[in-house]
């Protein structure tokens, strides 16, 4: 009895220690966050840094409120988020489909191998001008940029994962006379789900790059457009505001994908 009481006590102490440590970490994270903005504000007011270029948190916040009220911020934000979400979903889906095609036909995969290497090595954003000419300077081109940037790497990663599926799982299905399609649906695809989801996480980041660069080039709407516009009229309040919003929403999207990942692959 006495022994149990001591163990309980020790466990309590251990838990307390854990909470305390966690609190310290949270404190420091918060502290860095706040002091960064305070320092920035002070540095700007005391003109230690150039106000024109580095702006200040209060000025950016004022602009944020102003743009929020006149509605222009939300519409631009909505467009960029829409393009990005579509871009990374399309990129992941097309990449997975291409990978399936390569898995289906080893011959095709052997033939296409060098082309995949070239396409993967090439900086996809350099294709931007071509997209704009072919697809027109609008939403379609930007979504295409957000897609193309992730599709090849997704193909390569997912195809590798398809090939690494334990052959014995396929053997089990073969003994029941499974067709190639059945093997794909029952073993190959589900066992590669974790890989596909994790490419989704990478693709969120990539699609932001594609979409922002696309908006730079098309220069009509979206957060990328706000950045390039702010740069051209030398309004760095606008540039920094757009950057801050991109940071927030890219993080949110990443977290959402991570949540989906946890839900989907509970049992593996």
């Amino acid at each position, binding site marked *: 009895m006495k022994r149990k009481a001591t163990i309980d006590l020790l466990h309590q102490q251990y838990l307390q220690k854990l909470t305390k440590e966690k609190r310290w970490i949270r404190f420091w994270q918060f502290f860095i966050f706040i002091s960064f903005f305070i320092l920035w504000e002070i540095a700007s007011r005391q003109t230690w840094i150039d106000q024109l270029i580095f702006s200040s948190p209060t000025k950016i916040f004022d602009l944020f409120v102003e743009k929020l009220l006149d509605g222009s911020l939300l519409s631009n934000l909505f467009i960029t988020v829409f393009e990005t979400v579509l871009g990374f979903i399309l990129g992941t889906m097309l990449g997975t489909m291409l990978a399936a095609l390569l898995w289906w036909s080893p011959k095709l995969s052997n033939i296409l191998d060098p082309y995949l290497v070239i396409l993967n090595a090439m900086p996809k954003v350099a294709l931007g001008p071509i997209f704009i000419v072919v697809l027109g300077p609008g939403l379609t081109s930007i979504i295409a940029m957000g897609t193309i940037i992730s599709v090849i790497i997704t193909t390569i990663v997912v195809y590798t994962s398809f090939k690494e599926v*334990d052959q*014995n*799982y396929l*053997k*089990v*299905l*073969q*003994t*029941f*006379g*499974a067709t190639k399609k*059945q093997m794909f649906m*029952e*073993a190959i695809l*589900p*066992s590669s*789900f974790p890989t596909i989801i994790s490419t989704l996480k990478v693709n969120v980041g990539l699609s932001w790059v594609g979409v922002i660069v696309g908006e730079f080039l098309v220069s009509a709407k979206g957060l990328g457009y706000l950045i390039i516009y702010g740069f051209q009229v030398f309004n760095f309040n606008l540039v920094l505001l757009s950057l801050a919003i991109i940071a927030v929403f890219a993080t949110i999207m990443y977290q959402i994908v991570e949540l989906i990942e946890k839900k989907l692959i509970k*049992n*593996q």
Partner: protein
Amino acid sequence: MPFFIIDHVSHTYFTKDSTTTAVEDIHLEMEEGEFISFLGPSGCGKTTLLSIMAGLIEPTEGKIILNGKQIKGATPAVGYMLQQDYLFPWKTIEENILIGLKLLNQLGEEQKKRTIQLLHDMGLKHVEKLYPNQLSGGMRQRAALVRTLSTNPKMLLLDEPFSALDFQTKLKLEDLVFSKIKEYQKTACLVTHDIGEAIAMSDRIVLLSRRPGKITKIFSVPEELRSLTPFKTRQHPKFHSLFELIWKELEQHETKSNH
């Protein structure tokens, strides 16, 4: 005519810089309901042989005949159980054991009920909705056996199904599998490197040599051992004399192939 014939089967694998003969001129005839064990060291081509018997690999020479018909390609008449359970981790036990029927498009209510009943017969109750990683090794292997039996094969191929289990579980499972195979009147073929297991389970024991796999000798297990369960067989005096006989035979080949 015998029920199952391995008719002078040889198989050679080709790679860019070599050819490897895995099995050479294997000829064996099995009666219906018979239990045969292939006993051999690693590298005796046992997995190749089973894959050929299951119709998954076409042998370079020879053929497999089941019930008078040549086997070409995988057939539900032959059930193949692998060394590990290979239950799909993302499927529940129920989905796992029904996969064969689903693939063969035979998943009717009656078939489903029969397979679930089979699961209960194996002593697995209330596990249908669980995932494989929630089960112990022995339970998983039993579920894998149910999956193999679900399509009602006439011939069972067992590729070291007990080798990944701890000794106690292995002995218990041997008894269970032995009695179920007799109960359902299956013809079975077990591959193992455990002499005791081969004697305990089978009617005949086929010794294979290493690379290429060839039949070196066939032992008949005495009548009085055949009807006993594996656990009881292991305690029978005749078990030990047969064990020694096979041991010596294996030793002889070992030394022969090393010189």
